[in-house]
């Protein structure tokens, strides 16, 4: 294939995936809000409400506080959104390979997730509000706490895959080609289950959702990191948050549930791609409902010392157990 055509395809793919992820992110946010409302005995907003929210925010005045560091304050929302959307470029959706296939792996994703978090920290700190300062501290502490178990999960899986194949073990495409559940015994399956639980426990903190929404904690620090943001900047953070939910759910799907439906139904060709693509989004929706919606309506907010202790001690220990079981399973 000639290089120019390749570049055109990639650019179109990047634009397509960017718009797709924003659209799905906002749509899923609407579904999440509606479902959460029903779980709480409320009616809830219309499913398309997030689109109206973004539209409204984009029309609103963008207020910058007097004592803010203006250029930082205005730049970081873009960083948050761009780094989050970039992750979607590395995620294989169903049978389709990732847009940026070959130029990055799961380690890049972990870094990009961190960039999204750090840009919120920078944005909060540059806004000059004491609430945002508290929120920034909390986001930093939360990030330091959950990164270790998160990376443990990723490395455990990659290590196990590296024993199966010579393909690059950290590439997400390899994860989809070698669904680990099929290659492990009972002990290994148990280990995988434990690693899955660890990843599910990390996700609410990664996404700043209840019960881990300490950096924003509306009743405590009035929205924390986002307290001074309004208008366009807030809209960008809002979209970034919505996309991040999809990103984390997709990551769980790719790492643990890469199975496709076309093989089961015995369909092949172009229809199979469409079917697998749709099935991928259904799986993402399922993970989001399980791990974001139903958890955030079922618990009170934790405190920062409780979060740090929980992730450093029991959750990290759990990930070690998972890795240990995988290793034992392979040795047997």
């Amino acid at each position, binding site marked *: 294939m000639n290089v120019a055509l390749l570049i055109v395809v990639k650019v179109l793919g990047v634009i397509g995936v960017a718009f797709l992820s924003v659209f799905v992110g906002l749509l899923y946010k609407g579904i999440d809000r509606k479902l959460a409302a029903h779980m709480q005995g409320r009616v809830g907003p219309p499913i398309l409400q997030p689109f109206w929210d973004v539209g409204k925010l984009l029309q609103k005045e963008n207020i910058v506080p007097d004592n803010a560091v203006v250029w930082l304050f205005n730049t970081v929302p873009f960083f948050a959104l761009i780094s989050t959307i970039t992750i979607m470029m590395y995620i294989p959706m169903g049978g389709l390979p990732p847009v940026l296939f070959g130029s990055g792996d799961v380690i890049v994703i972990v870094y990009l997730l961190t960039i999204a978090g750090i840009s919120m920290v920078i944005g909060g700190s540059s806004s000059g509000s004491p609430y945002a300062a508290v929120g920034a501290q909390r986001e930093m502490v939360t990030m330091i706490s959950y990164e270790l178990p998160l990376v443990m999960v990723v490395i455990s899986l990659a290590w196990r895959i590296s024993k199966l194949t010579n393909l690059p073990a950290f590439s997400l495409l390899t994860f989809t080609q070698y669904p680990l559940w099929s290659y492990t015994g009972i002990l290994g399956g148990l280990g995988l289950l434990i690693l899955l639980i660890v990843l599910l426990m990390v996700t609410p903190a990664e996404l700043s959702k209840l019960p881990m929404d300490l950096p924003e904690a*509306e009743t405590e620090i009035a*929205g924390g990191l986002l307290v001074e943001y309004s208008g366009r900047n807030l809209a960008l953070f809002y979209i970034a948050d919505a996309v991040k939910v999809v990103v984390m759910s997709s990551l769980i799907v790719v790492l643990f549930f890469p199975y496709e439906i076309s093989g089961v139904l015995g369909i092949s060709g172009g229809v199979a791609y469409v079917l697998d693509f749709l099935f991928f989004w259904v799986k993402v929706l399922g993970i989001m409902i399980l791990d974001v919606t139903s958890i955030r309506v079922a618990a009170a907010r934790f*405190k920062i010392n409780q979060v740090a202790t929980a992730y450093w001690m029991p959750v990290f220990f759990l990930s070690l157990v998972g890795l240990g079981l995988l290793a034992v399973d392979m040795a047997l």
Partner: protein
Amino acid sequence: MAEHINVSYNVPVGPIHPALKEPVNLTFEVEGERIVDVKVKPGWNHRGIEFMGMERNPIQVIHLAERICGICSFVHAISFVQAVEEAAGIPVPERALYIRAIVGEMERIHSHLLWAGVAAHELGFDTLLHYSWQLREKVMDVLEIVTGNRVNYGMMVFGGVRRDITPEREKALFDMINYYRRNSDRLKELFLEDPTVKLRTRGYGILTYDEALKLCAVGPTARASGLAIDVRHDEPYAGYKYLNVEPILPDAYTGEVIGDLYDRFVVRLLEVDQSVDIIEEALEKIPEGEITSEPKLPKLMVTLKKAEGDGFGRHEAPRGEVVHFVRLKAGKDNLDSWKVRASTYGNLMTWPPMFKDTQIADIPIVVASIDPCIGCMDRVTVVNRRTKTENVLVYDDLHRLSVEKTRRLQRK
């Protein structure tokens, strides 16, 4: 050990903040997340109601008193009416006394359920907020059936009440009793057995017995610290004279008294059950008869105009004891003097000791734990308009002023 570096900074909470339902200002000195010190500054919601009351005649003031507080509107009406009845010597029929107690208990149920929802919201547990407010709707509906209004019931009048409990209304009340009996276990399980709620409330915001006593805490805040005070039990009034009311302490549920946030949850939720029992007992014992000793308001007005004397009215509001003091002068249409001491006035000063060893995350729930009603409580701030400075009178100033006044009176 390294030298202690002072890294504290100030976090203002209020007058407007999501953790607060009404304006009050708390300035926290924090180190990281840890609270070092707190300064409480009320005075943002003073409405001068006592002054307005002294410009009106007592019958008008009943409705004004009801509007002191939007949530516990009945408590101010009953305390005020009792104070005036005592000052003017107006008799009240027994049936009216029972009805007063029934409405008072219904208000306690709705206030405690409302509080439980707010407290859950402060913990970030919105599901419980919606659940307890859904339960609260029942008592609001029955309040509307019985009194005609969901808030500001307009039930009180000197010498009795304005609406009788008819058989249909009685049926609605029994319905409500059954409804809360059915749901009470689930309510307690959701609030008191939930691990995340326990994690946030057990052992935080402790108010010891001694401090509760010293700071004159009242109501559930005091009872959660083990102080067995309850006006309904200590100095029975209205229908409570004929009913069985025991102060509820948290050890009835947990077996021990710690005085933390959890204990305040326990006391309030148990009091919902207690109120249901009281209403049932009152409905069984309520005698037939008149509901007011003087239905004609002009005649009542004449009696009040002739009356001379002081009166005290006390009521155990959902938040604690409410006291109204009234002085009537013969030949004067209006009240000569009116003084309101709302329950939050007694509870406000329990905040600083509660904030010991807590974090920023605990601020909303500790603030909410005394169920503050700033609108009832707020007092004047003295502002010098020329120099734009505010004068806050602290304990020493007040003590000096009262000594000066006593001396002045002695000289006369």
